């Protein structure tokens, strides 16, 4: 393949891989707007996220099997085209059912696009560099999803998240068709790598908390705008991007990187469960640790699960399946925990608010009016953190009382932030536990120790 063509095609295919993987979490910041505009329920909105990850998890291995038995070039191009058409359908969806169906088709096309792009990148470059581009694009895409989605939702609308994917595909389809990736049947069919894929499942479940729950905490718990939340979570992709060069500088080896990454992700999640206030600054360092951990682990584990294993596409399918099964596991495991905790947090939050109103230096009539208005808001927003400001804006107060009311509003918001943060604590700690469990999954058992040592030796010796 000519160098000039390769320079244009390879980034396009890598960008496609990043886009498909970013889509697993890209709608996170847009969910409240989707809920409002499509008039859905909270569980339906959760399915916008779950459907994509579930279909991708289920379809990845069968898609990889088909790709390993057929010519990957047209199948990859069809996968990208289906992904793009389904993205357009998502943007045009006027009901929640249509959106969920379109997301499922998007994931189906995405499964073929992901595994197909792996084969095409390897064909365009070589085994080592093609695999490296594919995994790096996936890591950055996964980490940047919420950030990109948040910015687009705030700047334009939730539909724009899906619209921007269409031109990428319009360019990527012809780019894919320019690469000839002949089917090369492998002489041996190796079993899927156990430990790295199990670790990927557990880490992806933990990272769901980092990418999904942090956004929810910032937007729903602390009532920050999607743009502010997007800016705050941009720390994760930036840290994930700088992690591999840092690791190469230390040259500790893949096992050292994955062990460090698991500790960083678990520690970052534990720190998110333990913030001293609702100031965004306290989320930066934990997210930086998570981003570094993401950059160190997913990259290394994907390498460990796929390197020198054939058919390549099939093992690529297993890693994609593992990662998205992990996302679904994270959502299924953590969603009921934090929604139940959020419901339970209503009681202490309401009591704390009642205490503050009772002690506020306001006239009794104003206290009663305020309590009544706040009560209605708390009831109307059942299960969500309410915006208290309208209740204060309705009050007719003297200048002196307005100062007291402003202080009271700040104190009440502080109580709500405390309650919301407390409600997310269990989920973050469970997620931290999942990251540590991934570390345990990587500890070699006597039976498989020898095999892992061989793999590690090959990787340590060959570099990446």
């Amino acid at each position, binding site marked *: 393949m000519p160098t000039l063509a390769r320079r244009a095609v390879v980034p396009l295919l890598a960008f496609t891989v990043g886009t498909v993987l970013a889509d697993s979490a890209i709608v996170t910041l847009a969910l409240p707007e989707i809920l409002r505009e499509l008039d859905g329920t909270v569980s339906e909105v959760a399915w916008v996220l779950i459907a994509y990850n579930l279909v991708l998890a289920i379809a990845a291995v069968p898609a990889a099997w088909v790709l390993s038995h057929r010519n990957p070039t047209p199948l990859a191009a069809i996968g990208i085209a289906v992904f793009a058409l389904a993205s357009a359908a998502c943007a045009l969806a006027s009901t929640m059912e249509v959106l969920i169906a379109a997301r499922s088709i998007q994931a189906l096309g995405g499964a073929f696009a992901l595994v197909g792009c792996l084969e095409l990148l390897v064909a365009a470059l070589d085994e080592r560099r093609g695999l490296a581009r594919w995994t790096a694009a996936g890591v950055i895409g996964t980490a940047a999803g919420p950030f990109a989605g948040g910015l687009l939702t705030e700047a334009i609308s939730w539909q724009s998240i899906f619209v921007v994917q269409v031109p990428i595909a319009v360019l990527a389809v012809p780019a894919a068709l320019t690469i000839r990736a002949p089917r090369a049947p492998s002489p041996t069919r190796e079993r899927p790598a156990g430990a790295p894929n199990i670790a990927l499942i557990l880490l992806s479940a933990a990272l769901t908390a980092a990418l999904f729950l942090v956004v929810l905490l910032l937007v729903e718990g602390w009532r920050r705008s999607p743009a502010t939340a997007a800016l705050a979570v941009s720390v994760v992709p930036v840290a994930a991007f700088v992690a591999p060069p840092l*690791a190469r500088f*230390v*040259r*500790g*080896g893949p*096992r*050292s*990187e994955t*062990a*460090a*990454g698991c*500790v*960083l992700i*678990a*520690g*970052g999640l*534990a*720190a998110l469960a*333990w*913030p*001293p*206030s*609702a100031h965004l600054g*306290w989320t930066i*360092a*934990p997210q930086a*640790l998570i981003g570094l*951990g993401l950059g*160190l682990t997913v990259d290394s584990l994907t390498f460990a699960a796929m390197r020198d294993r054939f058919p390549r596409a099939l093992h690529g399918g297993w890693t994609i399946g593992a990662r998205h099964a992990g996302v679904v596991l994270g959502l299924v495991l953590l969603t009921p925990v934090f929604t139940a905790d959020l419901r339970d*947090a209503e009681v*202490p*939050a*309401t*009591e*704390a608010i*009642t*205490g*503050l109103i*009772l*002690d*506020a*230096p*306001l*006239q*009794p*009539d104003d206290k*009663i*009016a305020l*309590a*009544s208005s706040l*009560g209605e808001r708390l009831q109307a927003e059942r299960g969500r953190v309410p915006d208290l400001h309208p209740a204060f804006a309705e009050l007719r107060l003297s200048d002196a009382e307005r100062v*007291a009311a402003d202080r009271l509003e700040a104190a009440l918001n502080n*109580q709500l932030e*405390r*309650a919301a*943060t*407390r409600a997310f604590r269990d989920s973050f700690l469970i997620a931290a536990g999942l990251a540590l469990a991934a570390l345990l999954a990587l500890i070699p058992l006597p039976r498989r120790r020898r095999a892992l040592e061989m793999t590690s030796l090959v990787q340590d010796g060959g570099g990446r």
Partner: protein
Amino acid sequence: MNQRALVLPAVSVALVAGLLGVQTANGGGDFVPARAADPCVPRVVTAASTTSIEALGEVLVLYGIDGAACRIGVSREQLVLTLGVGTDHTEALYAELRAGLLDAVERMKRENLLPPASALADEALADADLNRFLKAAIRALPDRVVDAALKTDDVLRRAITDLDLRRLLDDLDQPNRLQQQISAAVTQAVKDSLTDRLRSIVPDLPGL
């Protein structure tokens, strides 16, 4: 595993420990909603009201809620929320609330928070439905005469005993009706207190 392989995990553990340490030192574990205080432990209450009768009533209610919550064994916040939600409360709850308010009078008396009746007279007369000659005559009375005739704690106790708490809580969101009920109860309490006072001075006065 060589020494180089230990660098990254060791740095990671140090980073995590450092971050959790900084967060804990800055109150990481304490960022939870405020817990309701024990209503049986006396708290300092200051009224936001500017007029003395309103301020007296405000402190009385806040002390009373504490007292009632202590008697029932819940926080004052839980009691207020219970009273604020729905109207179908048990008589026992109203009885405890009344007892809490009566306890509050005793406490305010003990803490010298009850002003003499003469200090409240002008304000009470301004709102009273009396002709201006009678108001002028009462205002002309020396404070010691007013204070001798009316004891604030006695008036409050009588007013609390007479108050229809069920109706009072039903009208919580209608300030005018609330004010009417309290005024009526206080007026009746003043009348009863004066009658009792007169009866103690002139036991055989006809019509008492």
